[in-house]
């Protein structure tokens, strides 16, 4: 099995941002991503997902290091101040390197 190293970028943020984020990610050259509904608690209080205004999403992106850096930098300048958002990056191994 030959595998290549990529970055897994995970973003947890407000569901209200989903459509604008999708546009941003496409513009920044992200090939694909997965979005799941999420709930939890953080510095902006409990996000219970009981209804749309208190829902969170979890966006997972597997991409190369430079794209991950670009996305992280963009999100930090554009959204960190006004929105509930965290992101973290992990190293992952993928089998089909051309896909990511």
């Amino acid at each position: 099995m030959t595998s290549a190293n990529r970055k897994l970028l995970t973003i947890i943020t407000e569901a209200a941002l989903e459509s604008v984020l999708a546009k941003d990610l496409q513009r920044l050259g992200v090939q694909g991503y997965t979005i799941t509904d999420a709930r939890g608690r953080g510095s902006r209080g409990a996000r219970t997902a009981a209804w749309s205004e208190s829902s969170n999403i979890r966006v997972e992106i597997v991409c190369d290091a430079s794209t991950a850096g670009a996305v992280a930098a963009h999100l930090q300048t554009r959204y960190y101040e006004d929105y509930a958002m965290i992101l973290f990056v992990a190293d992952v191994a993928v089998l089909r390197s051309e896909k990511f």
Partner: protein
Amino acid sequence: MNAVDPVLLFFLLGLAAGLLRSELRLPAAVYELVSMLLLLSIGLKGGIELGKQPVGNVALQALAVMVMGAVLPLVAFPVLRLVGRLRRADAASIAAHYGSVSVATYAVATAYFASRQIAFEAHMPFLLVVLEIPAILVGILLARGFSRDMPVGTVAHEVLLGKGIVLLVGGLLIGWAAGADGLTPMAPLFFDLFKGILALFLLEMGLITAAQFGSLRQHGVFLVLFGIGMPLFSSVVGILVGYGLGLSLGGTTMLAVLAASASYIAVPAAMRISVPQANPTLSLAVSLGVTFPFNVLVGIPLYHAMTTTAFAVLGG
């Protein structure tokens, strides 16, 4: 005269369960479905009637209601800014919430009217849609001024294609095209079940309202006073506009209810995207934590009594 409408008891149950930190919650998908059914049923009912109204009449009412929707936030904004000392973005966002409408409050009012057999202009849902939008635009302008970097496309998309507007307008069009006879086969779902669906919806609304109380405690007395004072003022404006337009007593009361209600779906969603600096906790705490319970529990009967008095005095 029955004492308390049972749908309100469901609201109080949700409120109590939320305050006691019960585990109770409606699954998100069920809440979505229930609110979709409410929006569609309100739209359909209005659409059936819309076709029967003379176009000129309806256009004049729509225009008056639109102006009212733009003026109410302009009154609220300086109060929030000067008396409440809120930041510009927060004041603009809350002002927009109070210029727009709450469909849930409207739904409770229709139940109240139905149980007391008060007739009102049945095309009211059309005016509800019309009243929903101007305040959002005024709110955005109050927060950002006429800036060039405004993402007009995104904002327009958010405002005009939000879930609530699409379902209400869609319901209106389907109701208008199909007419009462055409909709008879669907009546069991959309009309007969209305109160049951409303009860479930209000149960969840009670839980959501209870969740706002925590943040309300942090933001003090001003917001509570504003959350009660503003709808009282708006209801008077609504009564004057309704009377001026020559609406019936029921229709004028309904317009007062619409004017007094504060949005908590369309406006928060639009404000989150177009005025990100505004703190959504603040506006939802006041519109959901204060104004919504005030309107459904006290406001609706109060506005009814106020309108009745106004009609007696003005000779309606």
